[in-house]
């Protein structure tokens, strides 16, 4: 089991780094966010299966629902940003920099 945890933790770290070091496209950042949620789903499912506990699976459905909602909202923000800023590049989001 530590191997699996190690593996999935590495996957999460990769997506997190991709999200935080992302510089070109907004949608790539959203993809990294989706990758994070995917990794979380795998981690929780593996843990719930290992615990042989059926009750946790209903919580997993909530995880899926919320990550779908988050992804949808991110995409609508992408559309809105394309409307207002003309493109969806990250370096266009510089109106508010301090």
């Amino acid at each position, binding site marked *: 089991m530590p191997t699996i945890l190690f593996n999935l933790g590495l996957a999460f770290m990769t997506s997190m780094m991709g999200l935080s070091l992302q510089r070109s496209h907004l949608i790539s950042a959203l993809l990294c966010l989706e990758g994070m949620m995917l990794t979380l789903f795998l981690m929780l499912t593996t843990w719930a*299966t290992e615990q042989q506990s059926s009750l946790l699976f209903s919580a997993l459905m909530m995880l899926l629902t919320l990550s779908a909602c988050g992804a949808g909202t991110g995409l609508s923000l992408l559309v809105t940003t394309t409307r207002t800023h003309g493109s969806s590049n990250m370096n266009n989001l510089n109106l508010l920099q301090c």
Partner: protein
Amino acid sequence: MTYAIFLFGLCFVFGLLLVASNPSPYYGVLGLLMASAVGGGFLVGVGSSFLSVILFLIYSGGMLVVFAYSVALAADFYPEAWGSRSVAVNLVVFLSLLVFVGSGFSWGLSKKGVGEETVDFGGISLIRGDFGGVAILYDFGCSVLVVSGWVLLVALFVVLELTRGQSRGSLRAV
């Protein structure tokens, strides 16, 4: 089965690495699709095949269609694959960072040895845990159901409200 799971896990990390190394969005979607497919295989190996079906259906059927649409919205003139220089540099940097972080992570986490057996739920004819767990959602896990439905409703209005402002501040209509 242990080795299969280990292989799937490695492919999963690799797929996410392909997403995270900042290529053009087309290739990023490809990497995420690969990661979700491999993740489904991973879950089959671990023992909950029903959730793997759900995962694969949601990710490839639902999200990636929408993602393909949005990727078409945010198209590049000169798409960068993993061969191009900046992305390749990112890949190498991320790999080395992964080795660095991973060694610290494994030092902090795994007190036990590497490579143990996986756990499997019962056979086909029994009541399987993941089926039952999802079915529980409609019985005494109804608070989860209510909260999820409420979130979906709120998210619907949020999306409608966010994409509404066509009249103000639009440089071009998409």
